[in-house]
């Protein structure tokens, strides 16, 4: 009997311990110590978003697209591995999915919209204008590459599968966006970010860049509607007007801040070399940019690889372009001048065209500290088609490693390139790349690669 009683006391004690444990553990699971993520932030400020947006923009402008198109325009050559496949125009839908996804995901449109929201809420109007120019630049580049893409329904929590907007409607929307951006910038109102890595929050530079960007976006449609030349000319004339007004990416010698090109070469040295076409062109012109763009080959001379030729023994990029802190062009003063030249030419004003072209030559000399007149000047013996060809050639050389060189080539078909395997460059060299497989597989609005158009609406032939 005694034993039983003891047992009962024991049981009671256990029940007590359990009850104690239960009551003591009310917060066991809900304690902030285990509920808050120490590794990520849930609330960030405008400047931190702006920082992410800018670095994302730099990655977009000088990253994989620039590499691919530099190979297709034969400024560069793909000489090893996947880059050889790209050089042979073998690309799959997963090859550039990071670039496509970055349009919208973190640092892309979603955060630009976050920034526009925060700046609006705080009435930081000019800051908002900067954000809008970033959006127009990002979406304009993207629409030029992929054509019809999600935009009006993108980054909207209520829309699970954004539709594709027509390329034209996106460009139209971007022109309006840039007009609004210019208005915002002109207001000069509100707080300005300390970390504007492009123009140091110099609003006049932003306004000029917005005009240049408008001009560029108009030009993208000139093949379809020549009326755009006049529109482009009007904007370019309000555009970037001096060398320091150029939009460029920013880098430093710190490894994690170094340029994408440097990092690509650091990891994949043999994958890319000088394009034979550009090397030969520079050699034939005796152009001093040969040494600026490229490094000597093993024989001490300059050589480039043919399209699709797996040959890493030719010239590589120069130490200038492979410097960790080299800033790559996004939208430059000389591009603006080339736009003026082309648009003026197309609207019948050869004199303005020549002046702009020669100013571009002079700007490039200044930029690279070249001797005055070490680059050609074009007098009035250059006229008609010959002048246009020179404008296109100079722009092709001048916009080295810039995505815009590919857009120009698609539109003007100049310079005349011989594609890998010979044949017609218009059918051999791709005029668009497939949508990201990540988007295609999750968004029923995106057709499979075989049903995607080969060319974009602004580039019908």
């Amino acid at each position, binding site marked *: 009997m005694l034993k039983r009683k003891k047992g009962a006391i024991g049981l009671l004690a256990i029940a007590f311990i359990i009850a104690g444990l239960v009551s003591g553990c009310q917060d066991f699971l809900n304690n902030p110590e285990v509920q808050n993520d120490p590794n990520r932030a849930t609330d960030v400020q405008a400047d931190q978003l702006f920082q992410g947006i800018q670095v994302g923009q730099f990655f977009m402008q000088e990253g994989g697209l620039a590499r691919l198109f530099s190979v297709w325009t034969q400024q560069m050559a793909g000489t090893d591995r996947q880059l050889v496949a790209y050089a042979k125009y073998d690309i799959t839908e997963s090859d550039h999915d990071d670039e496509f996804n970055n349009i919208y995901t973190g640092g892309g449109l979603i955060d630009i919209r976050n920034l526009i929201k925060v700046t609006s809420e705080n009435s930081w109007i000019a800051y908002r204008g900067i954000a809008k120019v970033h959006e127009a630049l990002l979406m304009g580049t993207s629409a030029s590459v992929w054509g019809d893409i999600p935009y009006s329904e993108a980054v909207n929590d209520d829309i699970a599968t954004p539709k594709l907007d027509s390329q034209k409607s996106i460009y139209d929307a971007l022109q309006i966006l840039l007009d609004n951006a210019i208005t915002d910038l002109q207001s000069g109102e509100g707080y300005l970010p300390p970390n504007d890595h492009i123009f140091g929050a110099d609003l006049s530079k932003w306004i000029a860049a917005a005009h240049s960007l408008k001009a560029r976006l108009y030009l993208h449609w000139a093949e379809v509607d020549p009326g755009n030349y006049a529109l482009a000319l009007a904007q370019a004339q309000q555009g970037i007007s001096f060398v320091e007004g150029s939009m460029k990416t920013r880098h430093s010698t710190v490894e994690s801040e170094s340029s994408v090109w440097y990092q690509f070469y650091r990891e994949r040295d043999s994958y890319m070399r000088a394009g034979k076409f550009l090397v030969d062109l520079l050699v034939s012109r005796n152009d001093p940019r040969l040494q600026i763009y490229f490094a000597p080959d093993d024989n001490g001379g300059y050589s480039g690889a043919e399209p699709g030729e797996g040959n890493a023994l030719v010239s590589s990029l120069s130490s200038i372009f492979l410097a960790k802190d080299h800033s790559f062009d996004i939208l430059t003063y000389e591009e603006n001048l080339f736009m003026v030249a082309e648009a003026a030419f197309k609207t019948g004003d050869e004199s303005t065209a020549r002046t702009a072209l020669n100013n571009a030559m002079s700007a490039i000399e200044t930029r690279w500290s070249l001797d005055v007149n070490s680059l050609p000047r074009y007098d009035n013996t250059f006229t008609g088609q010959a002048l246009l060809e020179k404008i296109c050639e100079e722009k092709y050389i001048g916009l080295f490693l810039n995505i815009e060189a590919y857009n120009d080539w698609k539109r003007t078909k100049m310079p005349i390139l011989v594609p890998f395997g010979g044949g017609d460059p218009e059918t051999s060299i791709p005029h668009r790349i497939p949508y990201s497989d*990540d988007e295609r597989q999750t968004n029923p609005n995106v057709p499979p690669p075989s049903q995607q158009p080969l060319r974009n609406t602004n580039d019908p032939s």
Partner: protein
Amino acid sequence: MQKKFIATIICCAFVIAPALAFSQEAVVISGKVTDELGEPLPGANILIPSLRIGAASDKDGTYRFIVPSNLVRGQRVDLSVRYIGYRSEVAQVTLTPSANVVQDFKLRVDVLKMEEVVVTGMGVGVEKEKLGVTIGKVKTQEIAESDEGNLVSALHGKVANVEITSTSGEPGAATYIRIRGVNTIRGGTQPLMVVDGTPINNQMIFGGNSTGGHGGTTPTNRASDINPEDIESIEILKGAAASAIYGSRANNGVVLITTKSGKFGRPQLSYKVAYTIDRVTNLPELQTTYGQGVDGVGYTGNVPWSWGAKLTSSTPAYNHAEELFETGHTLENNLTLSGGTEATTYYLSLSRYSQNGTMKSDNSDYNRTAVRVKASQRIGSKFNLMGNIAFSDVGMDRIQRGSNVSGLMLGALRTPPDFNNEIYLNEYGFHRSYRFPDRATLGGTRGYDNPFWVLNEHLNPSDVGRAFGNIKVDFDPVDWINVSYTLGHDYSEDERRTVIPIGSSDKPEGRIIREKFNYKETSGRLAVTATRRFTPANLVLNVMAGQELNQRSYNNFTTIGDGMSVFGFDQLDNTTSWSPDEYEWKIRDEAYFGQIMVDMWDQLYVSAAIRNDGSSTFGGSDKRHWFPKVSGAWEFTALDQFKGFGKWLSFGKIRAAYGESGRQPAVYETITAFITGAYGAGWGEALDATAFGYGGFLSDYSRGNNNIDPERAKETEFGVDLAFYHNRFGINVTRYLQKTEDVILSLPTPPSTGYGETLKNAAVLENDGWEIGIDMQPIRIRNFTWDLGLVWGKNDNMVKSLAGAEFVGLGGFVSCNAAAVEGESYGSLRGTDFVRFGRGNTVIENGQVIDIDTKYAGQWSSGDLYIAEDGFPLLDAQERTIGDPNPDWTGSIRTSFTLFNKLRISGLLDIKQGGDVWNGTKGALYYFGTHKDTDLHYIDASGQEQRGDKYTFAGVGPGAGTEVIRDQDSWYGFGLGNSFVGVSSESIEDGSYVKLREISVSYKLDHPKLKQWTGLSDIDIRISGRNLVTWTDYTGIDPETNLFGTLNIQGFDYFNNPQTRSFVFTLRFNY
């Protein structure tokens, strides 16, 4: 030895009665336990259950114990004997004061080991015959005979549907375990591991420069810190029906590890010394005919290919695979001391395991020093205290491997045969590689590192301190109630250094990475168990209720230092820029559980359990969830109707079970947040958002969700266990059907929504399978026994639904990725293929886009290649499923012969049927022209010998039937004929294998003179071989390999380090 510690505590409450001075009236009970043939059975448990007094039999099978006088009342009591592998016996004896009892036992063999006590979870031990589920059990001897340093590897081929993959032959390499297929998408497939009732850490951390698991160095899995010598048994709860009591961490099954304990009796001292020699097994075949160059023209310098000129006979040619390896050595020393009195038991072990790998390097080794102390003490008649403390110090030096320009095999196998890699420093004393042999600078890339540079100059040490301990208190207020509390802690700190010296291709300016990984897990478990017998229906009722609290935390500090200033100074101080990183988490679980087990008529066993589980990782979602299970077993041969069949059908049981187990969301993943990220596109570049002195944040790629339920696996299992012919032939068959619902995954969403993934309970997976185990003793005569066992398991896995997503990527390479694809088995390998018929492909013919299926209707059958005008097939830009890494079935055959109880010969054949491996190594070597298969030539029109072959592709299309020349340009190198830049499906191979996993011969030297002369009771001498032969059609290294370690991404071979075969010589001295 065969007694299980926990089982003992729970089932028998206390085996050994209090030490009491015995008086004149005490009764001595003694006797001898033998088998049917009269062979003594040492270590059998003899017990008077009603008095909880007993002993174990000695080496000669004799036993003796004393019933103290105060318990001797002239009563009749049951005296039972248990011995694993034999049917237990019960004898009735009368305890009369001063009348000693002599009782001998003759036990009958039981191949199904139905009376073996297995732990079914939460410390509850149950005899196998009562189980409603199959629980795999691996015991001391099997672990010892595997001769594996990693206890997970010791499970190779032991249990049906428990798939074990040693990821490489490197010292300390991780071993992957997968039980009954995969039932999650991204949740990890490794089971929960529990040591003596306390969950432990089995993390595998890549760290270093591993970039998503395919580069860097080989990681280990933390369970390998445990000294396998300390293990008494490993039990595997395979599915939800068995593991439900572990609730929301048990979806992958549970591996219960029980360590050895001291036993009542004189001190047992045992010393083991084992010496192992390791040799690499298969290496890729390389050509030595053609030298460095392109298109048949020889070059030196920065030309990566070996498609150059034919080497003259005077040019020395090197085999760049074989030259890297030598014989590896392992020395293991193990000392254990154990014993006990009636109140105290103790177990102490010391071990040192030091392995030097097969690579010609001083920087490839694994050294483990492990100490374990385990002791128990009875306090009074109601308390028992057990403590178990283990410490391991593990040092590893690893070699750069995999997809990594500083990887060993990558640089080695790509080297042209005419380049001598062994001279890895050039005339200036700088790194010399085949692409940059003469660099006059310390820094700068070398294309790929010279493998001897990798072996001699790179450093990748990892230093781990691991402390594990638990304390268990048992309290028995009355004889039918037990209250136990277990408090355990597992701590490990892994400190690593990665030195990529200046002049290495991965980081030409040098990089030093310092990392610390710290893991802590604390768990406390309270369980109250009541067991009562009732006379009606021989009813035994066992009720248990309890609570479990668990907290685990992890933190990782990393500092990457770039730009080394001087060579050979390997601290961060020697670098010029730094980027620090930290990552940490903390998780808490709180669970309540209850279980009822009912035994009726000694033949019907029913149990039911329920667990309510709460976890902090649910965030804003409901944190608590229920997990039930129920099972039943009926030993129908206990019916009177079967009594006469005893000889032929000696045992028969049918069983069925149902259970649910779960999986929590990963920590913090329910939260939507901003990250400090970097931009990159898989080429190795990383542009940090935080830059130029400003912090940068961006929206995370994944969106969280505050409405998440646990993943829930619902499993039904049924089976039958039969033993025939005096229990000499046993078979068990199990069928299970498992459905996992609400699988948590970051479901791919269109990136255009701003998030590439959104957390959802989205997927449904099914696993169903069969398991068959056969155990027999075909021959059993005096002094000779032949045991034979077969294990066979088949699991069919199917991703039933992904909530609309076509597939979910799991990771991999640019050219081949693992994915969960709706309607396919988990882990499908995806990549590019050729344009084939029957898939709606379009191609361009004469400038026109045509649908090939329509245009060539009637000419093709599905899967045929489309042959373009030039006679070659085309690339299909759409990625597709190209392989399935899951085996069709796995099995093993093990056998042993025992002569005179002294000589034992045993062997294990391990079989895997099916399961694709992506041999990316081979694809790359085609591209580089170093693979043996590229040693081809044909005679061209001008009569010249050219490298390549003439071939006509089978298929349909404008170029069908056209003979083409396949050479570097058109096919093997820059064409589609390699998975490197071409079509990834070219490298899919069947990874089936049969391996002679273990073979061992042991002899026990126990001549009486030995004892006389040395005092030793016996010496075990053993010679064994591991992985001696592999039969496979796989053309790469061993098909048992995986670049991604224990990740869900399986079936990848990309410059993996090879496997090893070993010979082991073991001496064990028992005192």
